[in-house]
């Protein structure tokens, strides 16, 4: 099998300081014994509520948080035991779209600098960067005219497109998305979902999405990993999990999902008047 990413019994957490007098350092464990594999070209979604450790998983994958125990294998190499230059080599093959488009863009930088940053970091010449930046802006459906604007002038949906453009400019093989639509309107959400899927189809990337929204996951993934309090409670294909959920937690996620009840089952809902 062609596994591109593998987490082997990863336990991770954050240091915290409890008590002012003693200053005892403690480690708050967030992820407990997490193992999963992502194949090349797969679309995987990690689902969980706030505090379940979804973002922590991404931090571990992105090389930002060293796990307490366990291994993170990317292209078969143990990320955290590599020397830092080789680690960077591997991390450059990952594109990352952060969570909040309103807080993830530098408000004073022009869009071309924001989008070109990943190339600038690897020492590409500026004239090539500018060319490439306008190419990716076209791919994500933004007008060329914004290239000299700052992010302040853009709407939420446009900001999210800028973040996606920045993530794909260096032609990554893995695309990691942290809640790509949770800050957006439903109508813009649909635009972004379709854009991400067309990027997936054109560039044949491996896509890992973190979300708390099953509806979004259904469109952005083929396989779901359901996380609860730092543990994987269920894993399987989208159809399998939605049709036939095994764990109680998944069942409750599905039943509490907000549907438009007007279409099939509005009769079940009491309406006065």
């Amino acid at each position, binding site marked *: 099998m062609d596994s591109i990413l593998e987490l082997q019994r990863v336990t991770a957490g954050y240091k915290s300081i409890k008590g002012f007098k003693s200053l005892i350092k403690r480690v708050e464990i967030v992820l407990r014994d997490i193992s999963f594999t992502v194949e090349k070209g797969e679309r995987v979604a990690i689902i969980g*509520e*706030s*505090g379940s450790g979804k973002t922590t998983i991404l931090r571990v994958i992105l090389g930002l948080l060293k796990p307490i125990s366990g291994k993170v294998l990317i292209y078969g190499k143990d990320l955290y035991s590599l020397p830092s230059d080789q680690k960077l080599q591997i991390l450059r093959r990952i594109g990352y779209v952060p969570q909040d488009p309103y807080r993830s863009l530098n408000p004073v930088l022009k869009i071309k600098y924001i989008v070109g940053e990943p190339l600038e970091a690897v020492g590409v010449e500026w004239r090539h960067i500018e060319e490439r930046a306008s190419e990716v802006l076209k791919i994500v459906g933004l007008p060329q005219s914004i290239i000299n604007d700052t992010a302040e002038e853009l*709407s*939420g*949906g*446009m900001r999210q497109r800028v973040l996606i453009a920045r993530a794909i400019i260096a032609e990554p093989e893995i695309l990691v998305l942290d809640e790509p639509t949770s800050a957006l*309107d*439903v*109508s*813009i*959400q*649909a*635009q972004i*979902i*379709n854009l991400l899927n067309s990027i997936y189809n054109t560039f044949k990337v491996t896509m890992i999405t973190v979300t*708390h*929204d*099953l*509806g*979004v996951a*259904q*469109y952005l993934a083929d396989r779901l990993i359901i996380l609860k309090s730092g543990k994987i409670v269920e894993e399987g294909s989208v159809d399998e999990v*939605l*049709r036939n959920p095994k764990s109680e937690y998944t069942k*409750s*996620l*599905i039943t*509490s*999902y*907000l*549907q*438009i*009840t*007007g*279409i099939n089952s*509005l009769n079940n*809902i*009491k*309406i*006065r*008047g």
Partner: protein
Amino acid sequence: MVLAVRAGGISIGYIDEEEEYIVWAVRGVDLAIEEGDAFCLVGESGSGKTTFASAIAGILPPHAVTRGKLYIFDRLAIDESTWNFNGLRGRVVSYIPQNPGTSLSPFLTVEDHFYYVLRDTLRYDREKSRKAAMEALLKVGLDRGVLEDYPHELSGGMQQRVLIAIALASNAKIIVADEPTSAIDANLRASVLQLLGRLNREYRVTLLLVTHDLASTSIVCNRLAVMLAGKIVETGRTISVLRNPQHPYTKMLLDCVPLLGVKKPLKPLPGEPIQVVEDKAICPFRERCPRAIDKCVEEPPLKPVGDEENHYVKCWRLTGVESG
């Protein structure tokens, strides 16, 4: 029949920083919300739904300009450019903000939050406010133990419940909830919405829910209005609008909501929401509408739909022009 909110041709705009022009967020809206209704304003960012809701809650910013009239329980709150929310704001109308995490002070306990609100609105003392707080917390399904907690000790869903309880304790007749579920997890949304629906049914509180999500509407509200570029383009009973949407915008809005377990392609709305500077009388959806006709440069009237009671739509296509 008592009308909780009556808006007559109300327009609300914001003066641009250089005071060169006014951006009109709400443009000539006529709306009546009956007492005891659970009414929903649906629309995308920039459609003016939050502006309209904050006008009802009496919390318009000072650089807002208004035209038209707004009555709250037959009291004139906005009369052209004069506002009079004294005795209404916080007492008759209460407001639940969007983001519970940033709306509660990190240095005050839940009990203090209740006290400062109830002291100012109802002149309650400590003891009375504590009693009212405990009653309200019970109604929203929280333990009285949270009174001593600080906001950071509560989860997002609990914080939102605290805010709802504060709105309840002030004995408000109208609760305005601005996107109450957009900042909390998907699995908690249903329970917060169901709570709002229950309060509306059991305590006869008039509810005005502001959201961009038609799914939330269908759970709580019995009536809805779809807003677009500051105008209401379709309004009616939730059941009839969702089963039988007439305006192309409403139809497209329904198409972009994911349905769990149903593989249908998502059809996003084309284009970005527009900002209206000039108050031209055109159909606001014209440029993004796949079915636009020549007539659409004029503003369509709000016409009733078929035999459905109270179902109105603002579209030339449905007023017989199509055939001609």
